[in-house]
Each structure stands twice: as C-alpha cells, then as structure tokens.
C-alpha cells in the first residue's frame, strides 16, 4: 500500500481577526494580552488537506512543524488532537526577530533534517503578517517546486501531486512533481474538529521543557508512551549557519511602528428626513460629486 510522508508547517498567531474594543489600548497600541493565541487559520485548512491524504492512504504520516516560543507547543497538541502523528517545535532565542527569509531558512534546515518527505503543506499566509512569503521561500531554500493558493489536493502519487488553485478570477489545475511545497488558501475546506479519542491519547503530550515543569507523578508516562514526547529542537539540533538566523539573517528591518489612531473629522450630520436628504442630493449634484 502506498503511503506518504507529509510535513505540515503551522504558526501560532495572535487572533487579529477578532480585535475587540479591549484589544486596543487608549493610546492606540495593541494590547497583546487581550488577543488569544490561535492556530493560524489557513494552516488549519492545510492540515485538513493533509488529513484527507492520510484518510485515503492509511499508514501515511503527518508531522507538524512549527517555529515559535515554548507556548507554541499548544498548536502541536491541537494538531495531534485532529490527527497529526507527531510534532516538532523549533524554538531558540537565536530565532527571535526573524523576518520571513530567516524564518524560512530555519524551517528549511529543520525540514532537511526530517528527510524523505513527499509533500510539505502550509497555509498560504498567517493572519498576523499576511505576507504569504514563508511557503515559497521554504520551497526555494529546499530547491523544490511550489504551488500557492491551493484549494484542494485532487490526487497524489509518488510521481506528482495534482492540485486545484483558486485565483482572483478563476481556477487552475496543476500537476507538480514530488516532493513540493503547496500553500493552501482559506477558501479550502475547514479543518475537521478535534477527535475525542485523540484528545485522550495526546492530552499529556509535552515538550521536554514543559515536562520539566510538569507534575512528578506523570514523568514515567513519557518513557512508557514515547508518542507523548513533542520534539523540541534548538539550534543545536539542526545544522545551521548562525548568521542566517534571527535578526542577523533578516534583510528587512522595522524602522518605525505607528499605531493607528482615528483622526476624527467634522462630519455633517444629516437627519433622515425628506427635506434634509433632498438638500444633500442637491449639494452632491452641485459639487459634481454625482450626476
């Protein structure tokens, strides 16, 4: 039976979609504490495509790879609850301050370590930056082809992957050799819910750092059940050139951050009465705004 080895790239992001009133401080700065950290939405669409391949080809495996701080292990657990087989957290102070290029370099070095994969799937973009750059940059660093804006994996075999792309004004069906990177757009099917059985199985899955803080009673669990060990890789576990990491590996620098504060202008208040709307329309016609 044919099986596939799939790597899903995911990112933990602040939930910028639901920026409520308390998420912005009075001075216009972002109150990060008020924004929950979530599994990047399009990475979940990517996860679903990987799970569908696993459904169709039992025995296929999904490894979830994420780079971030220690708490990003949360999204690996989230992935395990939905059907991923294992997860790797790439975490080190040396990665801090990475722009998309330094991020894709670090991810590509970790992927090089995993080896023998058939497909890398990730979301098209993350909602905190919306850059859509990491997927293609990882592909370039690994010197493999990419397909972006994918809505559905139609077919996969050991020679190639056939996918449907969703473009601005249409669709494309594309066949790309194995291995490749595909980035999945938000119009793809939503990810299935967590599986109760998998939650039971993986609820104690932890990284080595998390285990150090864990209750002593559970420590023997991790020897008996090796699948509960979420791998944690630092710069010592991957072969990297240090100058390509973090700030020094990032060609782009942030020069300035400005908070968006509404500059209220004096609006003319119009009553919804016939008389006032008549006057408004006259005014707009006279100023050649309309008509």
């Amino acid at each position: 039976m044919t099986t596939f080895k799939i790597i899903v790239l995911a990112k933990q992001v602040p939930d910028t979609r639901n920026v409520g009133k308390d998420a912005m401080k009075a001075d216009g700065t972002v109150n990060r504490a008020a924004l929950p950290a979530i599994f990047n939405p399009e990475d979940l669409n990517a996860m679903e495509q990987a799970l569908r391949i696993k459904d169709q080809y039992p025995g296929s495996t999904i490894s979830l790879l994420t780079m971030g701080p220690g708490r990003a292990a949360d999204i690996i657990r989230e992935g395990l609850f939905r059907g991923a087989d294992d997860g790797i957290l790439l975490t080190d102070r040396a990665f801090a301050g990475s722009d998309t290029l330094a991020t894709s370099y670090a991810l590509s070095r970790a992927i090089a370590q995993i080896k023998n994969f058939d497909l890398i799937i990730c979301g098209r973009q993350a909602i905190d930056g919306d850059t859509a750059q990491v997927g293609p940059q990882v592909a370039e660093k690994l010197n493999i082809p990419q397909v972006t804006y994918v809505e559905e994996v139609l077919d996969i075999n050991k020679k190639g992957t056939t996918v449907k792309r969703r473009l601005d004004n249409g669709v494309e069906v594309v066949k790309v050799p194995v291995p490749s990177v595909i980035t999945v757009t938000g119009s793809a099917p939503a990810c299935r819910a967590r599986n109760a059985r998998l939650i039971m199985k993986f609820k104690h899955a932890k990284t080595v750092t998390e285990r150090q803080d864990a209750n002593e009673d559970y420590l023997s669990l991790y020897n008996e059940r090796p699948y509960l060990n979420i791998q944690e890789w630092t710069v010592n576990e991957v072969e990297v050139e240090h100058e390509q990491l973090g700030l020094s590996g990032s060609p782009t620098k942030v020069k300035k951050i400005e908070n968006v504060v509404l500059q209220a202008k004096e609006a003319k208040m119009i009553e919804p009465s016939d008389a006032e709307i008549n006057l408004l329309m006259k005014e707009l016609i006279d100023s050649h705004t309309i008509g």
Partner: protein
Amino acid sequence: MNNIFVYCETEEGVVADVSLELLTKGRSLADKLGCKLEALVIGSKLNGVEKNLFPYGSDVVHVADDPRLSPYTTLPHTSIVVNLFKKEKPQIALMGATPVGRDLGPRVSSALYSGLTADCTSLEIGDHEDKKAGKTYKDLLYQIRPAFGGNIIATIINPECRPQMATVREGVMKKEIRSENYKGEVKKLDVASMVSPEDFVVEIIERHVEKRKVNLNAAPVIVSGGYGMGSRENFKVLYELAEVLGGEVGASRAAVDAGFADHERQVGQTGVTVRPKLYIACGISGQIQHRAGMEDSAQIIAINNDPGAPINSIADYVINGDVLDVIPKMIKYYKANTK
C-alpha cells in the same frame, strides 16, 4: 545600473492595471533618485507590449517572449527575474500583490537573499541612521504597510540587501500616464539562456480564467453594504442606488462572510482598495480593515443607526437612520434634482 525594476503582469497580452500603477509609482521614485525606470514583461505573444509601457515613463522595457512562459508558472519566471537582476543589480524591484506577484516575489527574494515587504500601502524614499552600527544609509526605500490585522502601520527598510523588493495591491497606487510620447528602449531577453529544462516540471492541466465582472476601481461612486444590512435581499436597494448614480456595489468583509455579497465586491485590506469620488457606507461599522480600503475616497457618506460607529469619524456626512428608509429617499431626490 541600480535602476528601479517593475515586473509587469500580462493576461493574453494585456498589461495588468496593477503593473501600470507600479510603473507610475516607480517613475516618481526614479525621478527622486535620479535613476531609470525599467519594466520587465515575461510571457508569450508580447509583440508591441512596450507601446503600453513607455507612456508610463519606462526608460527600458525588457521582454522575455516564449510560448512556454504563458500562462505563468513559478520556476521559469523566477529564473528569468533572478538572472536578469543578478546582471542588472536593481536597487528597487516592485511587483503586484496578486496571486502571481505573491508567488514569484518570495521565491526571487529567497534566491537573491534580498528583503521583500508584502502588500505595501505607501512607498517613499528616505534616509536611515543605524546608531548602534554608526552607519547612515542614504535614499532607502521606505516600505510602509499595515500589520497586525491593520492595527499598526510599520515602516520596513532593507539597509544592506539589494534589490529592495516590495509588492503592492491593485488600486493602492494611482495609474497616471507620464507622456504619450515618452521614449524608451526595448531589450529582448534571450530566454533559452536564462531558463533550464527543469524549470518546466510543473504542468498546467486546466485553466479557467474569467474576465472580471465587477470593477470597483473604475467606479466613480461606490455604494457599499456591511453586516448591518442584515441580508442579501436588503442589498437590493444598494444595487438600485448604484445603478441610478452610475456606480458599483461594494461590501465589507463581514457582509461577504455572511453571504450578503460576492467576494469580488469586498472592499478593505483583504479585498480591493478604492478611492471613488463618493463612497456611501451603508450599515458598515468601519473596522480598520475596511477603512484601510476606502478612507482615501473623496467624499464619504455613512448611513447607519449607531452614532458611535467608527466609520462616522472619517465620514463627511453621517445620516443616522435606517438604510432601507434612507436609500429610497436618496434615489427619489437624486432623480428629482437631475430632471
């Protein structure tokens, strides 16, 4: 050498609006820097394409014309751009933030190890002082873009690496002809020497591209509806008003997500950026994502029944009332006053 390059997209030989907008911006940056503006077109059947590009102030038009280069696929276009940039060493390279530009840009930036900033809303030239390193950089490209869901505006620079690359969405920059008689030079690229057979491993099996039905960018008036419209049915009055005023109907992301309007009508940071003569925001609260796509409209009318709606603070006129009551009155009195 060290000029500004704009990657121009074509569909069936027609240059995309976003590319012409970038040439316009590139022209003004080139004037400021005292360098040339060079356009790059990659595709097939491109005979005469330069005629559309010179009027926007292109000093050079590079043409890579080969049947294998259309429709767009990542690898051959990347190879041509990378090889040309290695030779020409541009200081700035601009692309549309379209499915093509957002596929190609990061691949090129990774291959050249140069910084890329996506979805810029403004591009300026300025200096930078790195106090820690004791270095001053002259005439960098300030790449200005919203981040964090539009809640902050970041200015990004690439002090060391070249080219300084940026993508910009359609409609964000203005398209303006420099001179109908602007003279430039055509340089035909030797495609065969710039691509390898392995660049053609990705196969396009099927392709359906439709002409865009809605063109919000060209509409002088946009009547836009938000979640407050309540239903797709209620959007009908907006179409009626738009038709009477010779405009188009837009929608907020919340309205599109709720199924009240189609995606192609979405105005905002994740949709289209518009700057019509008149923008009528109906039942739109005015989240920052939406405002980012319409706040440069010449005149804004906000119609809603929430006196505290953020949209009201950028509006020129605020009508506090029920949209379904107000719009028919606007139609009635527009007709009455234009008879």
